[in-house]
């Protein structure tokens, strides 16, 4: 089942799905596995596994630190794919690779796509790779049957959204606000109108991310988005209150 069909299937029972995020190897792969267990228990639908990169220029302070620490402790691409494989065999949710383009470029685009596929991933998010530079990767992805996730943003013009819409597969990642990952988004009418604008250019499901941290955000997005994307808030919780805290966090979020 493709990503879009999977999301539509899951949406038959619940009106707002959840995509969560972990930075591979931070604090450790054992911690990552425990985080995923909690996410699976809570019924999380999708997880993005971030492959650490030394220049995470689209990330906020917490993820910057996580990328840095993970690399410092010796995390490799092989370990990340191995973890992806173990996680995809073990959990019911679907998994996306998330990272920066240089990771894919260095191993070669074809190897990159094939390794995601072989590790049970269904797609990837490369925030620093614009569509103009993606045509070969998108072609390879289609052949392999995995999905490149396109980002749409508040600064995208309608003309730009039309281009992005054409390239969209599986789902779209709607960036709710300007800035890097991590800080709080004020959920307001502009988020709703942004998602509405994005929907005019594609039929794939819409995930909304950047700054989602609580049940109120979820309630706000219900009826607008198909998925809520939760990143920094979960890691923050894990750091401050560990496994028990994370369990409570997702239970409240998804209540």
């Amino acid at each position, binding site marked *: 089942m493709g990503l879009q069909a999977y999301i539509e299937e899951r949406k038959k029972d619940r009106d707002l799905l959840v995509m969560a995020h972990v930075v591979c190897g931070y604090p450790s792969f054992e911690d990552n596995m425990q985080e995923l267990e909690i996410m699976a228990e809570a019924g999380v639908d999708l997880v993005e596994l971030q492959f650490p990169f*030394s220049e995470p*220029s689209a990330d906020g302070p917490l993820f910057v630190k996580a990328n840095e620490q993970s690399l410092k402790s010796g995390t490799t*691409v092989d370990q990340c794919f191995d973890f992806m494989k173990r996680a995809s065999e073990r959990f019911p949710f679907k998994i996306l690779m998330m990272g920066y383009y240089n990771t894919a470029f260095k191993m070669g685009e074809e190897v990159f796509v094939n390794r995601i596929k072989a590790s049970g991933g269904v797609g990837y998010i490369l925030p620093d790779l*614009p569509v103009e530079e993606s045509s070969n990767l998108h072609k390879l992805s289609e052949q392999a049957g995995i999905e490149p996730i396109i980002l*749409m943003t508040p*600064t995208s013009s309608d003309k730009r959204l039309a281009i992005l819409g054409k390239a969209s597969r599986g789902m779209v990642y709607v960036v709710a606000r300007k*800035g*890097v990952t991590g800080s709080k988004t004020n959920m307001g009418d502009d988020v709703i109108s942004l998602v509405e604008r994005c929907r005019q250019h594609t039929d794939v499901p819409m995930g909304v991310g950047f700054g989602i941290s609580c049940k109120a955000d979820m309630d706000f997005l219900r009826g607008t988005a198909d998925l809520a994307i939760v990143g920094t808030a979960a890691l923050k919780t894990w750091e401050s209150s560990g496994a028990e805290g994370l369990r409570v966090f997702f239970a409240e979020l998804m209540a």
Partner: protein
Amino acid sequence: MDIFDFSDGREGYYGEYGGVFLPEILHATIEELLVCFRECKADPKFWQDYVSLLQNYSGRPTPITHLENLSRQLGGAQIYVKRDDLNHTGSHKINNVMGQGLLCQRLGKRRVIAETGAGQHGFATATMAAKFGYDCKIYMGAVDIARQRPNVFWMENLGAEVASVEDGQKTLKDAVNACMRDWVTNMADTHYILGTACGPHPFPEMVSWFQSIIGMEAREQILKQAGKLPDRVYACVGGGSNAMGIFQGFFDDDSVELIGCEAGGLGVGSYMHSARLAYDDATVGVAQGYKTYFLQNDEGNMNETHSVAAGLDYIGINPIFSYLWEQGKVRFEAATDSEVKEALKLTMRTEGLIPALESTHAFVMAIKEAPTMAKNEVILINQSGRGDKDIFTIADALDDSKWKSFIAGKADQYRAEKK
């Protein structure tokens, strides 16, 4: 040769290098910048305003100096130096900054941000912002702040906010990342004044265009003073802006050899250097918005870099140079930290010049090669900056005991005042 004519190829690409690799959220901003830059470049009035601004504010044209003593001592080629150290704020960085300051007026933005390594670009940007009335924030790695305090002092006193960047290696590349993060948040009213010919298109082209004033002046001046074109032109290469600046003056002169001088740090095989093309350690990658040779590992994570000169201590190189190097148009060499210290001492004693540690890398290569050349051959070095900003680093390197006791005395005085 017009490397900026993209009609036959992909816009913003030099061979397979360059491009735009930025988050989608910046797409509209970089498009807006490109359109504005194209208008400026096509408008002769813009260039006139730019030149007269630099004449009236920064002391251009900077002269060329014949180093007669050094040339005689080395016994080979005649060495001439283009004196961009005589610019206001002490380096070539002000050329690019004044150009982007004018462009920022056309963009209608009121806030500027910049990364800085040595602090020269930050210093120049803070100066420009004060003159033009922009809000200004400078991002600088904590390691660089520690080694370039005098420039931080001036930036702050010129009214800029200096943010210490604490992630990664805490040097220039991390300051670039910090600027990107600021820009994705504040692009509506903020222009990012990138300080070198790197980053996403159109920055390499735009910065090179502003710096081309160095080469235009230099070609005319050397013809007049030496009576001929130089046989070799040397420039240090961090990101590559001063080198692009002077080299462009000689791109169409096939007899002129162009030599880019990178930071060899602790030398070949040390993995503590910033030589992307002169040594074999760099490979092609994509980071900080563009594709070029980076000092990185097999998985694409950046390696630690090192140089005694903060302004050369950087992972990547201007994509235009990656292309011109492959084409055999520019030769790349590296000077080590210890060679730089020796060349600096020699230049100070024989000529009374104090080049910046960055610029001294170009002196090293010229001093090495001059004796192998004939007496009627001509060398031109770009002195991109002056060395007084480096007084702390140079005093350390020379292990100057009188300086150390002066600083210790100052510290005692401040400590006593605090009590």
